[in-house]
């Protein structure tokens, strides 16, 4: 518990930076957007493992990741809108990147509400897993949307193949924030998973002994 608390404390602790203006939103916008996609892929992966091998813990992990992923997607959209207003002059446009990210949010919601709507837990796990797996197709669409379509959203500033087109200080600040968001997501998802395990395994002897 202390370790998890520390990770959250350090994870969400602010890492500020030394340059001006509206672009500072990037330090939460980009990490949140990356996490929203990464968490989805990880969630779908565990959901698939749970579906194929009938592994209960994998399904619980997938379910634990979904709310955090939805929150990351929401943050990416919100900060994007607030950033878009001063730079593009509008809160929202129906462009490929923005729309596919919104679809991602609905995929998370769909996953969660489908799971909640089925009473039998294992059956809910399996149905939601199917939805998660089909929805994975949206992630590359989000990622490459700025290349495939002519959008208002700028292209990637960072890629694995080229040198980043950012100042070093900005880049390091952003990567630290990505790391912080990553740690936060892991900590919260694992905490949620522990709660889920207790909930579902409440009739076992070990729970009785642990609580």
């Amino acid at each position: 518990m202390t370790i998890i608390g520390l990770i959250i404390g350090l994870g969400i602790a602010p890492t500020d930076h030394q340059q001006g203006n509206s672009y500072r939103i990037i330090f939460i916008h980009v990490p949140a957007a990356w996490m929203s996609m990464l968490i989805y892929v990880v969630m779908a992966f565990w959901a698939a493992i749970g579906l194929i091998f009938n592994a209960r813990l994998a399904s619980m992990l997938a379910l634990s990741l979904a709310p955090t992923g939805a929150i990351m997607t929401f943050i990416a959209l919100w900060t994007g809108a607030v950033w878009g207003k001063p730079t593009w002059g509008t809160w929202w446009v129906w462009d490929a990147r923005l729309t596919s990210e919104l679809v991602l949010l609905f995929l998370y919601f769909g996953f969660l509400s489908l799971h909640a709507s089925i009473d039998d837990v294992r059956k809910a796990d399996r149905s939601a897993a199917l939805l998660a797996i089909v929805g994975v197709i949206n992630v590359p669409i989000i990622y490459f949307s700025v290349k495939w379509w002519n959008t208002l959203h700028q292209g990637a500033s960072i890629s694995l193949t080229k040198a980043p087109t950012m100042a070093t200080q900005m880049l390091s600040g952003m990567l630290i924030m990505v790391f912080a968001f990553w740690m936060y997501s892991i900590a919260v998802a694992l905490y949620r998973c522990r709660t889920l395990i207790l909930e579902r395994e409440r009739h076992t002897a070990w729970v009785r002994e642990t609580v």
Partner: protein
Amino acid sequence: MFYWSNFSDFLNMGGYALYVWGSYLVTVLVLVIEVLRLRSRNRALRKTLISEFNETPKN
């Protein structure tokens, strides 16, 4: 070392204060709410489990 020469410049964010702080505030708020809700859910669950176990004798 710092870009800002004083604190009020920092708060003003070059005129973008509302946008920058608006997005940071909402982010922090959402994350804090997530953690708090999760913690209360965990605690409530532990509480019910403990009282359930105390009512039913160990077999």
